[in-house]
């Protein structure tokens, strides 16, 4: 038996600790998609809480926790106690995507005879028919889970086990006095094997937490109970993961990560809206909600643009402006005429931000240099199709996968996608379609690339490619819509950001354009589905500020 587990631990190290950034992003997107399908089918459930905790659950199950869906009772597993159990749809979706049960079962959520009860039930011999493997704790009554986690953590310490207990609590739930009883007990017993994560979405059933029962200063409260505290942006997996790694190392004290989240994050009209705490969307909206989740547009500012050097400052400004990742153009003076940063520079920049590094190697013979960029802790590493053979690319990609780095391939405007690309879709997380000839920043966007991108996108979709298309070269707030419509979900912006005197404003402008592009897409889809009026009504407050850009002022007035 032990031997089986030892092998599984190895597998887990391979799979879970090393999960790539973009792969994690996709999995978290899938959590939301699966949750919303379940809720819409059930006609009830809590989308808000499922969505605010999606990154937390995703980071835990796909990056941090030791667990094995094939052996849910593996004694060395880490425990997850979902104390805010009304996030059940998101929790079930996470377990399902992790492999604990088939995603099709999500359609039975909250129905009679389902294993997916409204609030999850501890899976055991007694309750095989009301639960799914992987659920450790029967939640539903708020305020209890942290105490249960304390009990598990004490037992693990007694047994000299090294496994960790993670417990997700809510901010509304923190009104319960028992949370604070458990907080005292955890510090009394010096439970450094427990990490609580507070989903601080600031909304509870009746309204905003600070109006119903103020919780702030919540960090000071936990510190006063002698817990180590961390505060993170709760939809930023990089920050969540960094905080979890950090708290796992601490000794003699329990830790809490206050994750500042947005209830309903992912679906714009549900975002930060108490109405969506416990309400299901109409079923007819499901295709549109899935479309929205599938078509998030990530902005990746390229820091070689604009004034030379001072990368640190540029990264900080990009982060403040809301950039999703940092694009690093690495040029060797051979493949392209210019020379930019080296791996050593990236290594130094790594401490400036937890945003993912999207490294684009415009270098000859990348296979010879790849180790240094792995070592520099890039999250995505893309090499050019023009610089490697199929065998070399596969070798690079497999190496990156082993290191938990997203592999990417880039093609120049005049390069066609090599036919062998389609044989390795499972090893590729991103395809960069260049819309300028690489080598210098500040070039003009080549519009003929759009048709190429559209064709590639169609073919990749047909082949069930799970990764992203990334558009790079001369993209600004005018061309963003075009590349987005052509299928790009990651947009590199160089001069459009750093050529501006207002970097912050420039990023916001790009994000706004990405939003408009998304709303247009959804409106078109709603027309096709014959629910346009209904959709505009449901999404009213999201659409109002964009009305003139979208040309829907009259339609909006009509739905008032």
């Amino acid at each position, binding site marked *: 038996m032990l031997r089986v587990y030892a092998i599984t631990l190895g597998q887990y190290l391979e799979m879970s600790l090393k999960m790539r950034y973009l792969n994690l992003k996709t999995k978290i997107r899938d959590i939301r998609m699966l949750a919303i399908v379940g809720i819409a089918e059930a006609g009830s459930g809590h989308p808000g809480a499922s969505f605010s905790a999606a990154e937390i659950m995703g980071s835990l199950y796909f990056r941090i926790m030791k667990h094995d869906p094939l052996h849910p009772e593996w004694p060395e597993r880490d425990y997850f*106690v979902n104390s805010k159990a009304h996030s059940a749809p998101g929790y079930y979706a996470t377990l399902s995507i992790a492999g604990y049960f088939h995603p099709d079962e999500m359609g039975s959520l909250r129905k009679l005879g389902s294993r997916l009860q409204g609030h999850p*039930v501890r899976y055991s011999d007694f309750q095989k028919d009301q639960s799914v493997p992987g659920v450790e704790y*029967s939640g539903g009554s708020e305020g209890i889970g942290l105490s*249960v986690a304390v*009990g598990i*953590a004490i*037992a693990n310490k*007694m047994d000299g086990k090294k496994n960790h207990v993670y417990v997700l609590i809510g901010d509304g739930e923190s009104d319960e006095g*028992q949370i604070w*009883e458990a907080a005292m007990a955890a510090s009394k017993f010096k439970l450094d094997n427990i990490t609580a994560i507070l989903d601080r979405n600031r909304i509870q059933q009746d309204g905003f937490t600070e109006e119903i029962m103020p919780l702030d200063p919540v960090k000071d409260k936990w510190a006063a109970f002698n817990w180590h505290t961390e505060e993170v942006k709760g939809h930023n997996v990089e920050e969540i993961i960094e905080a979890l790694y950090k708290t796992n190392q601490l000794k003699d004290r329990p830790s809490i990560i206050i994750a500042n989240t947005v209830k309903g994050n992912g679906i714009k009209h549900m975002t930060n809206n108490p109405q969506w705490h416990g309400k299901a969307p109409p079923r007819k909206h499901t295709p549109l909600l899935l479309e929205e989740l599938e078509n998030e547009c990530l902005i990746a500012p390229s820091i070689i643009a604009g004034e030379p050097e001072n990368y640190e400052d540029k990264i900080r400004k990009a982060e403040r402006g809301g950039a999703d990742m940092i694009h690093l153009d690495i040029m060797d003076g051979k493949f392209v005429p210019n020379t930019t940063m080296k791996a050593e520079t990236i290594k130094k920049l790594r401490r400036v931000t937890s945003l993912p590094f999207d490294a684009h190697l415009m270098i000859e013979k990348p296979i010879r240099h790849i180790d240094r960029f792995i070592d520099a802790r890039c999250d995505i590493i893309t090499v050019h199709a023009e610089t490697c053979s199929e065998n070399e690319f596969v070798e690079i990609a497999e190496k990156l996968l082993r290191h938990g780095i997203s592999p990417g391939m880039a093609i120049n405007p005049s390069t066609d996608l090599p036919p062998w690309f389609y044989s390795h879709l499972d090893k590729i997380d991103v395809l960069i379609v260049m819309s300028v000839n690489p080598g210098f920043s500040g070039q003009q966007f080549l519009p003929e690339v759009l048709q190429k991108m559209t064709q590639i996108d169609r073919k990749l979709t047909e082949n069930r490619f799970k990764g992203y298309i990334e558009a790079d070269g001369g993209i600004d707030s005018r061309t963003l819509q075009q590349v987005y419509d052509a299928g790009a979900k990651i947009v590199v912006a160089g001069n459009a950001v750093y050529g501006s005197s207002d970097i912050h404003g420039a990023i916001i402008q790009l994000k706004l354009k990405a939003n408009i592009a998304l709303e247009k897409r959804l409106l078109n889809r709603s027309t096709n589905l014959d629910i346009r009026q209904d959709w505009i009504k449901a999404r009213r407050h999201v659409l109002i500020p964009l009305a003139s850009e979208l040309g829907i002022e009259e339609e909006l007035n009509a739905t008032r």
Partner: protein
Amino acid sequence: MQLGNLKKTADMRSAYGETLVELGKEIPDLVCVGADTTDSLKTKKFGDKYPDRLLNLGIAEANLVSVAAGLAIAGKLVFASTYAAFLPGRCLDQIRNAICYPNLNVKLVVSHAGLTVGADGASHQQNEDFSVMRAIPNMKVLAPGDAVAVKHLTKLVARSQGPFYMRLARPSSEVIYSDENAEFAIGKGNLISEGNDATIMSCGLMVQRSIEAARVLIDKERISCRVIDMFSIKPIDHDMIYNAAKQTGVIVTAEEHNVIGGLGSAVSESCSERYPVLVRRIGVKDTFGESARDDEIEELLIRYGLTSGEIVKAVVEARRASK
């Protein structure tokens, strides 16, 4: 049934504490949790012997019960103990959702149940626990009648899967059972003495009073009473109730508990479904108690009708009424 020496008294809590120490040796996974009452509950004895396996969680019962659930999830056999007043009522939600719903191996053993807690008054006199605990699926409810029963049942509970609620009384009580011959099984009543004219079914401290009542009834009224210790309130011994109803015609129940929802109710439910006969319930008559010094406990019980005399009266009246 071989009866013990009724003149000898022993206290239930010490029996509980000593048994835990004994079990602790056999069962390394046995853990006790307490809420600032470990001295009083005698679980401290267990802690003296196994310091790492007694957890004092302070005056935080909701946390106590839920931490117990967590320990059980991670494979421990947990005995959670404090005063009866503070577990079933205060922690109903946690007992229901954290322990009973997932059917965890947590044993709630409480003391100071019923009126006989005495001087602390009604806030501490738990007379509703059977009723509340009995209604939760998966929960089993026990009320031992003396220290020997406590010893046997603690062992039995430790070896049985799932949640249990067992209540002890504060005062020392007369020993009913002799250690050697006592036998207990969950879901079975113990026949204390045979009789054909009526049956008295009781639990906890009222068992000893029932034995007394039976003696008076045979001596003074020529009524031969079957006396049964119904220490297992849930599951209850339906066969024993059926036979008693059929063979003796009337049943009187006696418990240190509200007449609503406890042993009397459980017996009536079973009886009315299987072999309806008259059932009279002796217990606290849906009222709160009051303070009494230790030397006034007997008087307190008289005031609330929990005496052998009341049992005698009930048997006589029930027999008359059923003719």
